[in-house]
């Protein structure tokens, strides 16, 4: 994660590959990883929104946990 809260190059590449492969479950996990690693709350929530959205679509087992993350930061209710 860089100083601005962006995911490192390696994670970004993985996210792009997962997008290309339409691998929604993997994407959810990668976005969640980016969120958890982000030192910046707003950036973290941005990534977690993406993680949660894909988790909803693909019924990821951690959907509820992603939701709680957003709720904690008043980004979901």
């Amino acid at each position, binding site marked *: 994660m860089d100083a601005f809260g962006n995911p490192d190059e390696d994670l970004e590449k993985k996210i792009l590959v997962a997008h290309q492969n339409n691998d929604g479950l993997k994407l959810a996990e990668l976005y969640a990883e980016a969120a958890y690693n982000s030192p910046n709350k*707003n*950036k*973290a*929530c*941005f*990534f*977690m*929104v*993406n993680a*949660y*959205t*894909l*988790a*909803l*679509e*693909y*019924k*990821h087992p951690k*959907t509820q946990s992603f939701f709680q993350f*957003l709720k904690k930061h*008043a*980004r*979901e*209710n």
Partner: protein
Amino acid sequence: MEKTATLDKVCLPIGKAKGLPNEHYTCSSVFQEEKDILLFAKWSGLAVSAEIPNIGDVVPIHFQGIPLFIVRTKENKVKVFQNTCRHRGMILIDKAKSIEGAIRCPYHSWCYSTDGNLISTPHVGGPGRNLHEEIDRSKLGLTEVRSHVWMGVIWINLSGNAPKFEDSMKELMDRWADFDRPLFHGGKESSFTIEIAANWKLAVENYCESYHLPWVHPGLNSYSKLEDHYHIEYKNKFSGQGTKVYQQLKDKDGNVFPDFSNLEAKWDTAAEYIAVYPNVLLGVHRDHAFAIILIPDSPEKTYEHIHLFYSQEDTPEHLRLKNSKQWRLVFDEDVPVVEGMQKGRHAVNFDGGRFSPVMDNPTHCFHYWVANEVQNGRIRKS
């Protein structure tokens, strides 16, 4: 003007009546008018529930230009929705598939549950914010279309103001109470589609009468003769024909399909074929049933989607194939006459035709319904 052609003569007693004027088969504006009055305002057939057998299955369907999808919800209910996101109107479902979790719009990823609730609005309040005080998700669910499953068919009422399905269909549901039970679709080989170059109403008209059997279906007529048939008419609801000498299909060893259980004795030899207005043609027998859903494409083109159903899930495949082949032959035999009637509707001096006062009663019953509904619709509009 075509649209102002009088329909009064159609509604006369059958001995004096004339058929619907040509424009009801050829004119685009009348086609549009009938779409609203006859298809959208009533309970129309859309598809069969067997197309979405498993929870989460979803199929996009265009009905008269309207993008819809059918879905089997997590609660195992069949529902029909408009296939458009409540955000920017994007099409949500572009192909048949199984929904694991939520339906996600491919544009901005608004997410809906399979029962139509809006459950997530990513970044709607800005990056990383799924909420905004002006966006009330509880009021932005998918637009549901009234639907009901009966005889394996998903029926819809697009206008939303037809009487309840059970009230609209009461008389037929009572008549066929014996068949109000699970019907098992015969699978892939038990579905087929026939494209006809004709107005959809001609398919109804041909289906509901037995008068043409000796000439168009000589094979059928060899054992089920004209005199073995009877008319079925219920004004403004349905019409058709029945036979008193139905014979079960047999394979070379004499095997037949298993019967539906606990049928009344009359069904030992009876079978009935009823056109349920506007666009569903149903047939019932002691051992199988079928549904034909007519999808009008244009004034002069219609798709007939045919589905065969059985009393059990595990009927013999070779018999199912034989039955499909037999019905396909019968329905194919109808195509030239239905298309021939369509061509005849371009004869400028054709006056709608006359009915046999004895043999054409179910057809006249349908014409009466169309004429009456269209006239009432025009009065409401004016």
